[in-house]
């Protein structure tokens, strides 16, 4: 197991494209870190830089106190699980799992013992003589994990390992990976674009955008205290709603804001915020579950029209049209039985759960508020 330090890690390709830009953070020994971000944000490149499958253009990478920039993947002692599983089709499960040990010239008896042990952990004992093509997606994924764990790596790397599985199997494998992390206590780095995987598996999440780290934190910290509109919009499904507002006074309760587009609807967001000049453009962020939809006018509500309704059984969502915005607001509702598309409704926001960002999209919440 290893502590991993990334110091100003940059990857620039021959064509000048910068996949990662000065990435700087530390991963603790035994920690489960998840890299998330949209396609092309550099999360897989970052994983490949750590694996040694890509050359680092500048910056340093340390495993514990050892600089590993120039070490080959095997010398770094990483175990990697690929999105495609990358199981060797001409080898049996046992041969796939034991291939790395064979290359390392581990004696056959010890090799067989370690393969058996890995197979037992992953419940693959009955499949050791099977070829990958005769196996299901979930079984293949477990073999890929077996290939990684058999070599006792210092760090496990997962590159979107569940994206080829169906929804039910994905949940099952997610639980198995979480269990594996608990049992092995290993440092694990996991790349995904699925925020459910990120939120459920991670000790900490690294959110990346255009090769840069936008925020690192515990899953619920990212959800409750996003540092910018990118993280606020990326973490959470459906995504956070954003409204253009103007600062309109500070009080002990928090920052007051007004929306000229919504007939000067105003709200005082609770919390400690950096001082703003009245009239400054701000962005108000509210999650769907912190908005309330009503058919009757409430005191601090603004008018909207229902544009679409989604009833998912456990959750119901109303998508509403508001004045001055092309985007629909998403509202989570316990009961939408009396609401129809086209109905005029009133929307109010929970002032205690609102987020404020400046015009550049950075939070104006003071650090102590972020905890």
């Amino acid at each position, binding site marked *: 197991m290893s502590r991993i330090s990334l110091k100003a890690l940059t990857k620039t390709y021959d064509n000048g494209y910068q996949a990662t830009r000065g990435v700087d953070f530390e991963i603790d020994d035994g920690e489960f870190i998840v890299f998330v971000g949209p396609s092309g944000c550099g999360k897989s490149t970052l994983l490949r830089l750590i*694996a*040694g*499958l890509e050359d680092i253009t500048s910056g340093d990478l340390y495993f514990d106190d050892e600089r590993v920039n120039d070490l*080959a*993947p*095997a010398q770094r002692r*990483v*175990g*990697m699980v*690929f*999105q*495609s599983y*990358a199981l*060797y*089709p*001409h080898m049996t499960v046992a041969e796939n799992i034991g*291939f*790395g040990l064979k*290359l*390392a010239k581990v004696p056959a008896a010890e090799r067989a013992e370690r393969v058996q042990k890995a197979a037992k952990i992953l419940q693959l004992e009955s499949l050791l003589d099977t070829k990958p093509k005769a196996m299901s997606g979930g079984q293949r994924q477990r073999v890929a994990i077996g*290939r990684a764990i058999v*070599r006792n790596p210092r760090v496990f790397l997962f590159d979107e390992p569940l994206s080829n599985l169906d929804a039910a199997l994905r949940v099952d494998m997610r639980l198995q990976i979480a269990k594996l992390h608990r049992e092995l206590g290993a440092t694990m780095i996991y790349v995904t674009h699925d925020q459910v995987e990120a939120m459920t598996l991670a000790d900490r999440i690294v959110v990346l955008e255009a090769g840069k780290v936008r925020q690192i934190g515990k899953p619920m910290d990212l959800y409750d205290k996003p540092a910018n509109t990118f993280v606020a919009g990326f973490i959470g499904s459906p995504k956070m709603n954003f409204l253009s507002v103007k600062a309109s006074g500070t009080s002990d309760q928090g920052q007051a804001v007004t929306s000229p587009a919504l007939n000067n609807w105003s709200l005082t967001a609770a919390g400690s915020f950096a001082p703003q000049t009245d009239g400054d453009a701000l962005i108000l962020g509210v999650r769907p579950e912190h908005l309330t939809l009503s058919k009757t006018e409430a005191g601090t509500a603004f008018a909207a029209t229902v544009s679409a309704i989604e009833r998912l059984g456990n959750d119901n969502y109303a998508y509403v049209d508001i004045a001055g915005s092309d985007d629909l607001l998403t509202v989570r509702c316990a009961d939408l039985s009396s609401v129809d598309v086209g109905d005029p409704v009133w929307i109010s926001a929970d002032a205690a759960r609102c987020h404020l960002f400046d015009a550049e999209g950075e939070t104006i919440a003071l650090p102590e508020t972020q905890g």
Partner: protein
Amino acid sequence: MAHSASLSESRKRAYRTFGLYAVLVATASIFALPLLFMVMSSLKSDTAIFADLQSLRAFLPVGDISFENYRAVFENTNIEQFFVNSVIITVVTVALGIIVNSMAAFALSRLDWKGKDLVLTSVIVLISVPVEAIVVPLLMLVSRLPWLGLDAGQIVIETSWLDSQHVQIIPFVAHAFSIYLFYQFFIDIPKDFDEAAYVDGATPFQVYRHIIMPMSGPVIATVAILQFLAMWNQYLWPIIAVQGEAARPVMPGIQQFFGRNVEWGQIMAYATLVTLPILAIFIAFQRHFVRSAAGSGVKG
């Protein structure tokens, strides 16, 4: 009503099948009849061959049938030696060709190095250069190349490659079209396999040896078949580079035999003997033959 409709439909289908088979049989006959004529004639005397020429008897084992022509071929020619030479030349060239050409394709398709694109382009350009175009410079080259040979148990330095088996092997091991076929196959293999192997501790050679080659059965078969055909049927180069009988393969042998013998039955017997290995290979690897011809975009 429905019953009669389905009856006429099944009759139509039967006619269609019959028509299709008739066309296939006719087409197959065009190719098979010359071979049949060759084999049947090899069992007859010249008098019988010419007597049967005007009738279907030419394709049938009728009349005075014997293996006399085969006995004469073995008596009058050094065909055993030619056969051994052809087998050695073909097998060694195909085996070395698979190794050398696949390694070149591996380097071109899966490793990063400067000048790779230029080399790949050169290989593709070389495909279009016929052997006839390089025969003269190649001959000048090999006639001046030294070789370590054995003479009465002593190692001697020979001053030329001419009149040897290796002059028929080495220039044909590296084969641009084979490299291209391997390259095309390799670039379709996901790089995740290589990367998984590198993470497992493999070197590039181990990736080639343990991962890529075992997954490349179809293209190995294709290259082996195409190179086997090309080498077994080599004619121009051995005629130029080999004068004596010691290193002569079967195909130039038939020309020499034809030149001094007008016994058609014996010529047909010789032709049958040199065609048999190709037929045997074809029957054994029929599936791969069709696939290789389709996959390579060339005639099989």
